[in-house]
């Protein structure tokens, strides 16, 4: 197995710091996987090869009783009350990037969707669609990353599936995770619950993930120290809800489309206007520089380890303090507030003291020369 560093840094060998992408050239398989270094159609067939993958890769990695029963369904004990359920599919390219891989994304993405809904994430399913020819070494690294992410997040991967598609019909590895969590008592959050006067906080720097991916994209690559911020937010969000409870009206993790998309969505869902101050948005210098280089706006760039909070104004200071006390929230900031004016629109105060509307973007933001 390639040496797996702890989840806060990267997946991969400690020799390869420049890109933090794992080095698979020295991988030898210690497991009796019938001598196949790559995925073949049989691995998805539910027969001996498929079982070997389960027995020798997934089970040891995910390690829990529900999974080890190997039933068609996982049987779980849950406290009574309301449940939250979420699902997401992960198709990122490249599979390994500075700061993480598709594995961490697959676990943390679903964990975070549950957490921002006010739920305590508990169990995940993990389904893989693998392309014929996909190297087992890479699959092993991804699975190890998922296991580590699940442990950090305090969730268990209790059921799963593997299918294999013919060479050329998939991008190596696609993952779907679905998760369930139990809703906390005394919490009512939703994208339609933001109210005029609410303070808006972001838990840290924006644009890190998207620019980490850009830095390794063919045709656009650049050298930098930018790393994905991929992280499980349920611990930090739990702290915020413990402290502020019903004063938290809405939460969301701004993934694809960035902060701008999330704020526009909530403005529209809640029928309110949002005013933010650009000078208060936390952006790493390098992320800003990379955006300048490619003509991108950090507000539209994806994040994978950040949350946005809409809280009653009297609770803002407390929530900010709780965020800053958490390792994932040390760069947290109050960035603006909800208003009754310009309903459904996001307006930003620029460094010049003027205002601009930040519209919902159409499709992916592309690098420009113009």
């Amino acid at each position, binding site marked *: 197995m390639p040496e797996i560093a702890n989840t806060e840094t990267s997946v991969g060998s400690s020799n390869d710091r420049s890109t933090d992408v794992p080095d698979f050239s020295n991988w030898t398989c210690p497991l009796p996987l019938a001598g196949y270094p790559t995925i073949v159609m049989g691995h998805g067939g539910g027969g001996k090869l498929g079982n070997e993958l389960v027995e020798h890769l997934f089970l040891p990695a995910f390690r829990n009783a529900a999974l080890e029963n190997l039933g068609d369904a996982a049987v779980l004990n849950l406290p009574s009350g309301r449940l939250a359920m979420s699902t997401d599919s992960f198709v990122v390219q490249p599979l390994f990037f500075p700061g993480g891989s598709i594995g961490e994304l697959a676990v943390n993405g679903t964990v975070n969707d549950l957490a921002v809904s006010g739920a305590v994430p508990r169990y995940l399913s993990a389904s893989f669609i693998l392309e014929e020819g996909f190297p087992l070494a890479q699959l092993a690294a991804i699975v190890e990353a998922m296991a580590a992410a699940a442990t950090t997040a305090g969730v268990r991967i209790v059921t799963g599936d593997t299918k294999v598609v013919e060479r050329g019909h998939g991008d190596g590895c696609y993952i779907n995770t679905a998760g369930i969590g139990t809703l906390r008592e005394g919490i009512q959050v939703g994208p339609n619950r933001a109210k005029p006067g609410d303070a808006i906080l972001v838990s840290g720097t924006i644009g890190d993930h998207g620019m980490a991916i850009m830095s390794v994209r063919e045709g656009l690559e650049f050298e930098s120290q930018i790393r994905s911020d991929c992280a499980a937010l349920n611990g930090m969000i739990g702290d915020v809800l413990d402290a502020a409870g019903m004063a938290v009206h809405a939460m969301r993790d701004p993934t694809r489309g960035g902060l701008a998309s999330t704020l526009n969505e909530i403005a529209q869902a809640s029928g309110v206007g949002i005013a933010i101050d650009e000078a208060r948005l936390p952006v*790493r*210098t*390098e992320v800003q520089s990379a955006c300048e*280089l490619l003509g991108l706006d950090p507000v539209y760039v994806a994040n994978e380890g950040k949350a946005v909070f809409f809280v009653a104004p009297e609770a803002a200071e407390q929530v900010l303090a709780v965020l800053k006390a958490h390792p994932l929230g040390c760069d947290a900031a109050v960035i603006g507030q909800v208003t009754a004016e310009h309903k459904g629109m996001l307006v930003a105060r620029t460094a*010049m*003291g*003027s205002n601009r509307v930040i519209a919902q973007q159409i499709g992916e933001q592309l690098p420009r020369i113009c």
Partner: protein
Amino acid sequence: MCLAIPGKVVGIAEENGLHMGRVDFGGVVKRVCLDYVPEVEVGDYTIVHVGFALSKIDEAEALRTLEVFRQMGVLDEELADGDEAFARAASAPSSPCPDGSCAPK
């Protein structure tokens, strides 16, 4: 048209017959063709568009320009009359860190 940003040359090498440099843009380093700015040396700043350096940045000129800008309106404390929109812009809180050196890490 013409998105070009300033960067610092941190290394120069010949590659495939081209004069290529490694240019540092605020912590992000990119390979840039320096064929059009043969006078540029390591440590110089240059303006880069689509991977090509187009001009060396004249540091003295830059400083002179900034100084002229800084002096503008310093002695004139009177607001121009009439325009409401401008008055609002002028009364907006000013940045605590005008030169951006304390931007979040």
